[in-house]
């Protein structure tokens, strides 16, 4: 099964919907250990993407993702704006001019996205950030891909690993970002950035499930 530009549009619509549905929840998570604006900011960014989605329908996947990147960078603000913006920008690099990609190409793009996030945020796994959802998710993706899973199975494993990753942030002590000021008091709270990353993987899975 190939993923085409229409699937990417559908994925973005689903992701925007999930962020909107969880706006209050993300903001609530962020109030506990950050500055209480993650849901509001992410929703502003994805709403901006949605406002121009019709102009993207006939574009190649690289262009779609690059346009999303610019929308996120220029509207989200905070740390999430540069981090998600850089992720989409790095993901777009290997997909320029492509209207269809396979699961290998998707993995490469996701790996590039993670690399972008690490470059911009200078964080590694275990610091209670979105990386704690994304890194294990991509390992699960790669494993399932190598063992010959179907695209839906691959993304199911990815989402499950991301979910586990989010849960693992609860007992972690934050050492990056605004939650780090809390020190031990950050322990016991779920990381909002890891949670929004999980929602985005879920949107990918749902898109592929509908396609089958």
């Amino acid at each position, binding site marked *: 099964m190939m993923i085409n530009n229409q699937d990417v549009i559908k994925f973005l619509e689903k992701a925007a919907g999930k962020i909107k549905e969880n706006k209050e929840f993300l*903001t609530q998570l962020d*109030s506990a250990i950050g*500055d*209480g*604006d993650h849901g*509001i*900011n992410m929703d*502003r960014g994805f709403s901006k993407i949605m406002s121009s989605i019709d102009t993207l329908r006939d574009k190649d996947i690289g262009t779609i993702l690059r346009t999303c990147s610019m929308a996120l*960078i*220029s*509207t*989200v*603000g*905070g*740390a*999430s*704006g*540069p*981090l998600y913006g*850089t992720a989409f920008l790095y993901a777009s690099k290997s997909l320029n001019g492509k209207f269809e990609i396979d699961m290998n190409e998707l993995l490469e793009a996701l790996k590039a996205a993670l690399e972008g996030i690490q470059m*911009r*945020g200078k964080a590694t796994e275990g610091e209670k950030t979105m990386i704690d959802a994304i890194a294990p998710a991509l390992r699960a993706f790669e494993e399932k891909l190598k063992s010959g899973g179907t695209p839906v199975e691959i993304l199911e494993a990815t989402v499950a690993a991301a979910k586990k990753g989010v849960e693992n942030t609860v007992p972690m002590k*934050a*050492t*990056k*970002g*605004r939650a*780090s*000021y*809390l*020190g031990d*008091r950050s322990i016991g709270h779920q990381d909002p950035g890891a949670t929004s990353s999980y929602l985005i993987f879920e949107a990918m899975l749902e898109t592929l499930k509908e396609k089958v």
Partner: protein
Amino acid sequence: MKKIINKPEDVVKESVEGLGLAWSEIVKVNYEPMFVYRADAPVNNKVAIISGGGSGHEPMHAGFVGYGMLDAACPGEVFTSPTPDQMYEAAKKVHGGAGILFIVKNYSGDVMNFEMAADMLKAEGIDVENVIIDDDVAVKDSLYTQGRRGVGTTVLAEKICGAAAEKGYDLKKLAELCKKVNGWGRSMGMALTPCTVPAAGKPTFELAEDEMEIGIGIHGEPGRERMKIKSADEITEMLAEAIIEDLPFKEGDEVLAFVNSMGGTPEIELYIVYRKLYKILESKGIKIARKLVGRYITSLEMQGVSITLLKLDDELKELWDAPVKTPALRWGI
């Protein structure tokens, strides 16, 4: 939530619009993307200084745009850092050919967004120096966190560097000066009440009627300790001691003492704090050579106070005294 606003999503835009209308002889406003800039920009052959950050800390930063201070300020949403396109477009507007100094408070969002803007400008051949302010002594274990937050010293750095840019300091020298101010400035704040971000509608944290938070950050981030409320003298002592021992400030030092309201604390209380601070410093042989008392770096309507001490030498004193003309700081002109 009780606030004098129209719609939560219009708060920043409408406030900046009002600032532009009130001070049209000093500043102009650009809306897409949003930044406030000197009405006479660009000033040729002067290093342009740009700062910015989340809104909700007024008058910082837009209130400090004008002669002898900032060339432009980029306001983000409330407590959310501005985006790179704002700094990029602001820099293009105010660049006078001598480079750009970004003064950035040490919050991960601000640091990343300013870095992205600097990358974009450097790609076009514009010289940019990024100086980070991280003066909040409340943050312990700063090696294992994002590091200390940028607070009160930011205001002083913007004034002092602004004066130096007017005097003709080049970009490299100006960045060195900014780092010196950051190195010599120390702050700590406290809060009696939380504040409410308009778009969130609820207080950012909770504090019981008889409690206070010592070492609070300017977005309501927790500080060192939550405790029962104490007298003004005891509060001042706690803040001052933490600051003095950190640098440390020593007998014979000359300092600028800055007593700041977090937004909701009135001037009558600020001067009670200043009075005690004066006595503490006097008893240690530290001389207040310059002072600033008022509401300059705030957290919306939060009640609380912060103290900043900046060690001074002749260069810093001269630059502090130099003329400045901005909506929020004006003298000598």
